[in-house]
């Protein structure tokens, strides 16, 4: 059973209802979208940290936690993410469906009210956030930013990305920067918060088994929602073909040092193919090159050469990039880079079989079918559609994948360039 519904609550504020009876839970989220800018990214990242500290009616984190536990352990989560050149501030509420409660209750309504309370009705003193909350949460975010180095694999990836994009737009670290964090004042963050709430694009998603009309009415009548004003939001529509990509004159190579036992190798690729079917061909190319266990990277770099345990490529369609990630023994750097280059060149020469193409189709289509089997991935999919201004359903999506031919993939491959090679190696090497 499948039903989707998009409702404009007010200009710039959309409600998306997804009906599904496959889950024990209802998942609701509020997504606030703004363009990624160096001067705003840190302040925006700090906002969810502050909001989860207290609301007008639940003044401490402790009361919020107790309330959630009493709601059968509903889970509230928040954070920041990137969607192309946009920053997304996310708030999630995950609660069990009313059908499975111990007694009759309207848990979904309580969860929704709490979610909106947390996002739209913060605890303020004289119109400003609480200063002790701000000081503590600045420390908290400082730790998160410093903690970038803790996971060496993602550190290497983020560092490569920042270098590739010169610390602009998509290259910005989603949690921001220490030098900007220090400049945040109570006035500045309060103003930033109200700018978001009053001007930014807001999307509300609710997925689960419930009555559409009832939930729609409940949300529209919620006092924290009805007080929101219409707005003409500023955000960047994800249209990869408009994304300007220059030819790479010279590959940028970076070698960074840390205390690691294993070297972390990242290759950042640009794709310059510009036909309308770009996204679908790109997915196919990526699957054959390095995403699945049948891929050239997995088969040749891991299985045949035994150079690594992880060897994977990842297609970021909004930005027309592919990133290859590989954990290798440090002295094997040259060998691994050469072997990866061979795989990229072979793709250009069409050295892959019809069977590879079929396998890639099966692999991607099964991934598309999986979208509906998780509430979160379904929301992410429809939010992606919203952000690219398209309304493609999963069947159309599958159909377009099926139409990709080997020739398309070769043409795509010929327009793939290595832009950056990044290596995180040991301090002793």
């Amino acid at each position: 059973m499948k039903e989707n519904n998009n409702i404009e609550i007010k200009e710039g504020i959309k409600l998306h209802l997804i009906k599904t009876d496959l889950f024990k839970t209802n998942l609701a989220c509020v997504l606030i979208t703004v363009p990624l800018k160096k001067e705003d990214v840190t302040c925006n990242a700090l906002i969810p940290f502050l909001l989860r500290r207290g609301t007008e009616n639940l003044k401490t984190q402790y009361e919020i936690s107790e309330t959630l536990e009493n709601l059968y352990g509903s889970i509230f989560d928040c954070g920041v993410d990137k969607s192309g050149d946009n920053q997304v501030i996310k708030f999630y509420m995950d609660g069990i469906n009313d059908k499975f409660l111990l007694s009759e209750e309207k848990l979904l309504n309580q969860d929704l009210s709490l979610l909106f309370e947390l996002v739209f009705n913060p605890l303020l003193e004289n119109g400003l956030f609480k200063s002790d909350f701000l000081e503590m949460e600045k420390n908290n975010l400082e730790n998160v930013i410093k903690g970038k180095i803790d996971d060496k694999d993602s550190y290497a990836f983020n560092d490569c990305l920042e270098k590739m994009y010169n610390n602009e737009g998509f290259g910005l670290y989603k949690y921001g920067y220490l030098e900007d964090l220090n400049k945040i004042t109570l006035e500045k963050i309060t103003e930033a918060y109200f700018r978001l709430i009053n001007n930014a694009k807001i999307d509300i998603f609710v997925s689960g088994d419930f009555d559409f009309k009832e939930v729609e009415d409940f949300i529209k009548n919620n006092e924290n929602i009805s007080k929101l004003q219409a707005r003409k939001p500023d955000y960047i529509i994800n249209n990869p073909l408009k994304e300007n990509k220059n030819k790479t004159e010279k590959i940028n190579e970076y070698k960074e040092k840390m205390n690691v036992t294993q070297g972390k190798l990242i290759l950042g690729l640009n794709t310059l193919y510009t036909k309308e079917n770009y996204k679908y061909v790109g997915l196919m190319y990526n699957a054959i090159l390095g995403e699945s266990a049948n891929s050239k990277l997995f088969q040749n770099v891991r299985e045949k050469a035994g150079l690594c345990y992880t060897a994977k490529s990842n297609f970021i369609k909004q930005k027309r990039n592919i990133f290859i990630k590989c954990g290798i023994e440090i002295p094997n750097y040259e060998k691994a880079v050469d072997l990866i280059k061979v795989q990229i060149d072979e793709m250009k020469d069409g050295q892959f079989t019809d069977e590879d193409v079929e396998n890639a189709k099966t692999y991607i289509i099964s991934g598309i079918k999986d979208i509906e089997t998780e509430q979160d991935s379904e929301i992410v999919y429809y939010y992606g559609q919203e952000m690219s201004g398209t309304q493609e359903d999963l069947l159309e999506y599958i159909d377009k994948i099926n139409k990709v031919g080997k020739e398309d993939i070769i043409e795509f491959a010929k327009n793939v360039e290595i832009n950056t090679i990044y290596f995180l190696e040991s301090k002793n090497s």
Partner: protein
Amino acid sequence: MQIIENDKIKEKVYIKKLQNGLTIMVIPKKGSQKKYIIWGVNYGSVDNHFMVNDEEFKVPDGIAHYLEHKMFEQRNGKNSLDVLTSLGVDANAYTTNNLTAYLFESTDNFYEALDEFMDYVQNPYYTDENVEKERGIIEQEIMMYDDYPEWAMYMNAMRLMYHNNPINIDIAGTKESIAKIDKENLYRVYNNFYVPENMAIVFCGDIDEKEIFEELEKRITMKSNSNDVKRIIADEPEEIVEKRKEINMDISMPIFTIAYKDKKYDDKDMVKRDLAVEIIMYIIIGKSSSLYRRLYEEGLIYSDFGFDYEFARNYSHVYIQGQSYEVEKVINEIKNEFDYFINQGISDKDFSRIKRKLYGDFVRAFNDVANIGNNFINKYFKGSNLFDYIEEFEALNKDYVEEVLKEVFKEEKKVVSIVNPIQNEEEK
């Protein structure tokens, strides 16, 4: 066939033990597009010493994991992982301290994939060449783990608690230990532990239970083991080895583990004990606890504590993980808080609130076919299942929880493992 069900959560499980000794569990999920199957072997990294008939064997550390990697290799030269991937199913395998599991998840081609899946688990093919080829890949996997600070901290905590129990060795072994793995010792493990009476299959998805039992049974070719296999379990003193271990790694803030060695594994009691520990943790160090609030407001911690009660054949311990610039203070505060609750007991209000939360967690555990499959296989070899948990949970009372609190959280059974940041010269 045994059927267990729960009316409130609206789920049931069918359990059948075949003549050759293999157990199959089916949890039907009407309407689910996704199907999940997991084949568990009651053999993990701790099972490195055993008797076959009257002969004693010690196998190299990391062999269970190595064997898991090698199962995909087939006599016809194909690799089953590739075959399954071509069918569009998501296939994988994993090894823990006490379990090796093979699995796949599919939206299409389930039966085609099932043919391949059941064939490869039942037919090993190890050659000198294919065993050798894997060594480099596994070495890289070991090195990848070496760069994970949490993993280093966890392994140190195990070594602080256990003298002889092989839970103190790394699941994947070491570069040195895996050098001793060859096709002979792999076959020895396979032939003696990959036997029906030591395995179970869990299926979760939208297939009629009768049909899936039939389909599974007709693909089973393995016979009961005629050898007499006994695990040799090292004698483990009740005392810990050492109180404390600190190391340095390239991280931003110190991380720490506090672990309490518990009494040895005892089947009957474990479900109840597991639940009691969980309730204790939420009440004393959870996000609604006054300890958490205090530490957070004083800026001593920035995120909540992770915790778990781990137990299996012959070991059990509780561990708590956290991150702080003032590890000593936090550890001390945690100790004081446990002392306080041990003396004062737990309030009815906290107890009933956390029980309500746990009920929600049980419902949530039935959300996803893969989670359900993993949960059932993991609990099966410990002699329980999710429904036992729900049953025990309903009967659980506060007195029992307080009793467990007094028994488990003892200073003399506590160890502390810390990873500190390396001090950079520039910062000085």
